[in-house]
């Protein structure tokens, strides 16, 4: 009976503190906005254009690029600026349309369109292919006209109209892609995603929030509570409930804002809810534990983020464990994060349900119990002292 009162009082104190409000509300929203809007549209690429063309052929090529559905064209005036934007990943590729194209073609000289892209990046390669496809027809027409002029006589320009028609009626030659197998990655690839940021920050915040326990201890709040008709167990349960509610509130914000603003898919609702509940319990228990292990509020504020981020990196929150060596994968599963991220991959990439993530949930519940048990034990000892 006393635990809810303690939890409500602690919650009210947290909500009145502007700093806590920032970490509780502003930070998760900021995170989801950053991640949500940084996710690329996979079928559309930002392509920079340096257009030095001065004739009709160049105009037609640029029009072809503009008409390509997967190319989002941005114009540049300067080659260095274009290169820099590609290196900064602001563009997937860049196209250079030179001057004097038509004259070169007429004189039988090879006139090339330049293409710049990040080597060995999926978006760079795909953007490059989109650009090549957009320009292929014009190139085929010009080549056909030149070839015909060489074969049957006349000027290339004389054959342009018939070559254009031949290109228009030509049946398409295409490459289809079939994807198969079960994914070991999140849908967005192996960098970051809303789900892994949820795992990371709920934990970081909970551990940093361990300062609450320390402050209560320092202010003598527990002693005053225990002076009343309150059991040690009541105090511990009340504190744990507070941490759990805070973690849940934060998760709800991240999930809600992500779904509402960025159409983030969180997978099977039942399984996702279970996972969030269990993860919040892990976070709450870790927060309590840090509160009983550390001595000062400063330590909690300083060590909390470091430990949280380090464990997040180990467990695959900043990059997925699929890309790291086997030893690091094993280490990643010695911390709870690895299991949480695994479960999200199950839910989001393989349409998994509660049954699929049940074993991982079991492991996470074990972590929560272990952290929570240790925290309760230490808190009890501290309360008794």
């Amino acid at each position, binding site marked *: 009976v006393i635990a809810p009162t303690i939890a409500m009082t602690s919650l009210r104190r947290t909500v009145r503190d502007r700093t806590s409000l920032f970490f509780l509300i502003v930070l998760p929203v900021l995170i989801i906005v950053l991640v949500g809007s940084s996710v690329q549209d996979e079928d559309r690429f930002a392509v920079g254009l340096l257009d030095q063309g001065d004739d009709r052929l160049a105009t037609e090529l640029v029009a072809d690029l503009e008409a390509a559905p997967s190319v989002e064209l941005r114009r540049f005036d300067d080659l260095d600026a274009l290169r820099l934007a590609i290196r*900064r990943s602001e563009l997937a590729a860049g196209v250079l349309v030179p001057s004097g*194209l038509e004259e070169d073609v007429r004189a039988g000289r090879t006139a090339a369109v330049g293409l710049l892209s990040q080597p060995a990046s999926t978006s760079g390669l795909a953007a490059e292919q989109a650009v090549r496809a957009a320009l292929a027809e014009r190139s*085929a027409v010009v080549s056909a006209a030149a070839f015909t002029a060489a074969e049957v006589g006349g000027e290339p320009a004389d054959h342009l109209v018939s070559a254009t028609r031949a290109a228009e009626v*030509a049946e398409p030659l295409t490459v289809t892609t079939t994807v198969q197998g079960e994914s070991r*990655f999140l849908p967005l690839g192996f960098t970051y995603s809303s789900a892994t940021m949820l795992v990371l920050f709920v934990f970081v915040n909970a551990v940093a929030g361990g300062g609450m326990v320390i402050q209560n201890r320092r202010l003598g709040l527990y002693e005053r509570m225990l002076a009343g008709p309150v059991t040690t167990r009541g105090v511990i349960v009340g504190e744990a409930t507070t941490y759990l509610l805070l973690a849940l509130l934060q998760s709800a914000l991240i999930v809600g804002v992500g779904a509402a603003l960025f159409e983030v898919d969180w997978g099977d609702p039942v399984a996702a809810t279970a996972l969030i509940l269990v993860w919040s319990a892990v976070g709450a228990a870790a927060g309590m534990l840090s509160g009983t292990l550390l001595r000062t509020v400063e330590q909690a504020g300083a060590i909390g983020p470091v430990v949280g*981020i380090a464990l997040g990196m180990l467990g695959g929150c900043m990059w997925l464990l699929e890309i790291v*060596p086997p030893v690091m994968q094993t280490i990643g599963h010695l911390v709870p994060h690895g299991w949480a991220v695994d479960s999200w991959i199950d839910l989001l990439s393989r349409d998994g349900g509660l049954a699929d993530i049940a074993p991982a949930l079991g492991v996470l519940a074990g972590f929560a119990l272990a952290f929570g048990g240790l925290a309760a034990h230490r808190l009890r000892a501290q309360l008794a002292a």
Partner: protein
Amino acid sequence: VGAVLLIAAKDLRQRLRDRSAVVLGFVAPLAIAFLMSSAFGGAQDLHVDLGVVDEDGGPLAAALTEVLGSPGLDDLLGVSERDRADADEAVDDGDLDVALVIPEGFSAAVTAGQAAELEVVAGVDSPLSAAVVRSVAESFLTQVQATRVAVATAVGAGAPAGEIEALAERASSAPPQLPVEARDLGGRELDLISYYAPGMAIFFALFGIGFTARSWFTEQREGTLDRMAAAPIHPRAVLAGKALSVLVYGTASLGTAAVVTSLAFGAHWGPPAAVVALIVAVAVAVVALTALVISLSRTEQQAEGLSSVLTFAFALLGGSFVFLGMAPEALRRAALLTPNGWALRGFTDLATGAAASSVVTPVAAILAFSVVVAGLAALAARRRALP
């Protein structure tokens, strides 16, 4: 000057005695860099294991297989011939990254001027490999299509229709007009460690704001500030001494991260002079932000709260956690409202091969930010009649 140095040295000694400050300033960035390098140490150049399923057996299938096995693609593609069932299974198991299926009747359809398609079968986790193979296959088809258009145009203009094969041969060997040529991008590729090493180092350097602001209020409470004020030292010397200690702490923290991650973990920071300029600029920004936090806070708790809010807000907006290169322009602009956003842009440019002179703008921007923040701090301090 002697007093300034004395105060700075005292503050630094205090900082080094505080385990939290040492952990955040030196241990944390290195530990995290170590985690990153052990995660990516095994990263290698891209190599695609490709299975070719030739159900066609015609001349075009042979031509395509020859292209895939050509010496230029040797390093990139490891080609083996498979049958369909075998290829599917191998892709499922991850033995093959990608399979390319040339369907029955492909050559005949192409020669007859009909539509035709190639199929890329990709493992769900090999998007880059799939993109590579797709790219090669599409280039091949583009060339084939160009040949078909050339032959059709020539025949339409009166070339002998009976010699289509010879025509196609000549058309395909004629150099293409208006080819698309890949140009060298220059510079180097941005690897994760070269992005996150400075990103994380700056994030942890920002924690210096909190330490110093807190120690200011501790000294106020314990009377150290009063005793210094009573000594024959100008109040400005006290401030200068404290600022100097923050500057040194920030520079040392970032500098250690730069040296150790470069030497031990292969992070590429760039030309030393440029890196030093950026690091010192960031440390100056930390000094200015510390002054602002002190001037705006009344208690230790307020200072603590305000500095952690600033630290996390800046770290997130500036891109320490989420790479902002592909973010919409509004977010990339927002990052440039933070000193660490500018610094990361500077470091990213250096890491991708920009010249040392490229840091002039970021350094100027960070210093301008610091001047504005310091001005705000001075205003706030005057209103509150702080020294």
